[in-house]
């Protein structure tokens, strides 16, 4: 039922806009109103959803970050106390560093995805969709389930990784409970999980590149490697830019993998915990929701800054055809 209405609506607005242009400013205002009505009607469910479940809670969280929020409600305004406390909290800079290292490692999945995608998308590649599916499965699997399986794989005494290493006489570390190794272990799983999504976006980007470019390059005698670096990579930069943005944002939201793979009372936790982990800890374990709200705002600010920075420097390296 909605589709015909949509067509009718867009047609009338197009009639106004193109076929019967009205000169006066007052009329033009009226026209833009009728332009706006139908589209707005159709985005109402989304806008209301985002407003109620995202924007309003964000505004509230911003307010609560200036309060001492009791376990059963009853927030009390305390000004900047939560923020000054955050400055003195030594676990915050450490966890920002941890999160940055995690994100940097997961970002290595992007070059990997570019290489894999250009192999899979080669003309004449057999079972291409099978490979795409295989790589995509980890992305759609629940992080909790992935975390449990990897926890077993990483097990220091009985895990397959250390068993494999022992074949070469190497005594593997306790991956998830040794400071340093734990972050590496968690980030490797994060990289592995994000590969499918990156691969999908980059594959789509690859298929947008006109074949003629490769054909022309081949006639000019360019090798496959040369084609990859001179045609594929530059023309993929919009897709690469997109997955970089998404990877950095999700990197800063690291929580579930950490929660499942590390467990409580882990020796390596200070060198591994992420900002969201501290947030969860304060909000839901220690019942200090006001402080947790302030940490939430910090996470939002860092993500916003990093994303804005990436949009600024994209002009230097992203080629839009």
């Amino acid at each position, binding site marked *: 039922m909605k589709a015909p209405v949509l067509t009718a609506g867009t047609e009338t607005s197009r009639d106004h806009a193109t076929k019967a242009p009205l000169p006066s400013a007052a009329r033009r205002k009226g026209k833009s109103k009728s332009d706006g009505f139908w589209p707005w009607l159709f985005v109402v469910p989304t806008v209301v959803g985002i407003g109620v479940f995202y924007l309003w809670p964000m505004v509230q969280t911003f307010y609560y970050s200036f309060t001492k929020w009791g376990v059963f409600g009853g927030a009390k305004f305390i000004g900047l106390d939560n923020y000054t406390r955050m400055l003195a909290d030594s676990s915050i800079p450490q966890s920002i560093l941890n999160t940055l290292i995690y994100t940097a490692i997961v970002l290595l999945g992007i070059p990997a995805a570019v290489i894999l995608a250009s192999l899979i998308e080669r003309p004449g590649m057999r079972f291409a969709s099978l490979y795409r599916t295989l790589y995509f499965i980890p992305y759609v699997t629940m992080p909790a389930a992935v975390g449990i399986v990897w926890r077993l794989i990483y097990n220091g005494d009985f895990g397959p990784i250390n068993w494999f290493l022992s074949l070469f006489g190497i005594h593997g570390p306790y991956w998830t409970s040794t400071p340093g190794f734990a972050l590496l272990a968690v980030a490797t799983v994060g990289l592995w999980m994000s590969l499918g999504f990156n691969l999908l976006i980059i594959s789509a980007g690859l298929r947008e590149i006109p074949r003629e470019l490769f054909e022309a390059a081949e006639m000019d005698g360019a090798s496959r490697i040369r084609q990859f670096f001179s045609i594929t990579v530059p023309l993929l930069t919009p897709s690469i830019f997109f997955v970089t943005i998404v990877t950095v944002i999700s990197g800063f939201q690291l*929580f579930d993998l950490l929660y499942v793979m590390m467990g409580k009372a882990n020796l390596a936790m200070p060198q591994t915990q992420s900002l969201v982990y501290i*947030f969860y800890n304060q909000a839901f374990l220690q019942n200090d929701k006001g402080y947790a709200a302030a940490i939430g*705002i910090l996470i939002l600010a860092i993500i916003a800054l990093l994303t804005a920075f990436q949009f600024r420097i994209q002009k230097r390296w992203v080629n839009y055809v």
Partner: protein
Amino acid sequence: MNHNLNRRSFLSFAAASAAVVSLAACGGNGAAGSNAAQAAYAAPAKDLSAELNYAIWDAAQKPAMQKIVAEFNKQYPNIKVTIDVTPSKGSAYWTKIQTQASSNTLPDVFWMNGPHIKLYAQNNQLMPLDGLASGKAVDKASYPKALVDLYTVNGTFYGVPKDFDTSALFYNKALFKDAGVAEPTSSWTWDDVKSAGAKLSKFYQGKGIYGYAGDLTGGQTSYYNTMLEAGGTIISADGKKSGYDSPGSIAGLQFWRDLIESGVSPSMQQLTDTSSSDMFTSKKLAMTMDGSWTVGPAHTALGADLGIVSLPKGPNSNQSVIHGLANVIPANAKNPAAAQAFVAFLGSQDAARIQAETGTVIPAFNGTQDAWVKSVPSVDLGVFLDLAKDASPYPVSANTAAWNELENSLLPQAFAGTKPVADVAKDLASQMNSALAKES
């Protein structure tokens, strides 16, 4: 604290993964309650008609609870009780209950545990149940004293004990026999355990089998007991001061560090990767200190090789902390008469007997535990009941979770030997004291 925390609750982070967004959803104001002395409870008329919601978190206990409801309905046929299981154990249940408390929509009757009782009682979320006691519907003397104390906050009785758990020494008879080491007895001391553990670890060296270990990712089945046995405390009786810096407490923590340092116990990292309970059930551990709720899985894994004796005696005593659940009613109960009648029945001997017969938990009602003790005839489960007699209540304060988190983040360094035990204990005590100071 009890069986719940030994397994991980995977749903609990669902609430948090929405991070920033979800936080604001739990606003609202707390319910007002009064601590005024209650009139003695009188049983309502048998034809009282009401609907009650009963919130629990252990799906394994639902059949027993249904049976209890059916018995209850023989007395009150018109009170309809709906059992609501929040299947994730531990924090998801508490996240839900906390949200319900904030919005005045708490279930009519729900399970309470030690770490949360003071938080809910001191914030006036619970109905005082002194009336049930003075009205003789519930006799406090029917339950272990430590449990009644746990659910009595500032002199007011808030929860009728449902079940309990204590810890004891579990051992693997086959591993002892093969190594030619004499089996433990209930009169063993710390030194006996240490020397037997050393012999066992030495005998099985290179095979990945160890002499003795405990679950160091929480205190209930390990360091809480040894701290008490060495004459220390975890928290002062009024719940206002940390006991971690007392010499006894430090000795109780040092016990575990010594075991790890001498190679009797697997390292802290090994115990994080594979829990001591799992190592014991997979026959990689000859002795472990563990809770009564692991009797079932341990017996399934070891069969006749399972042995259980009382806790080894420390410098002062042999002591176990006791923890157990209770049934509570919210302060602003919609139907107080029906809820109290149901809670009184849940605390009765009949209800306890039904719980005992299912064998999942030790019922709190004195004298009804026989069925549980008989559930594994090859070992003397009576030791858990003996240990309950002079057990210490599970250590709690108004915001127990805050310093539980400190224990979990600081103590692993002491057990792993990256910092001296005494330094970590003193650091923990001062951080815990400042957390406790924030409570009031």
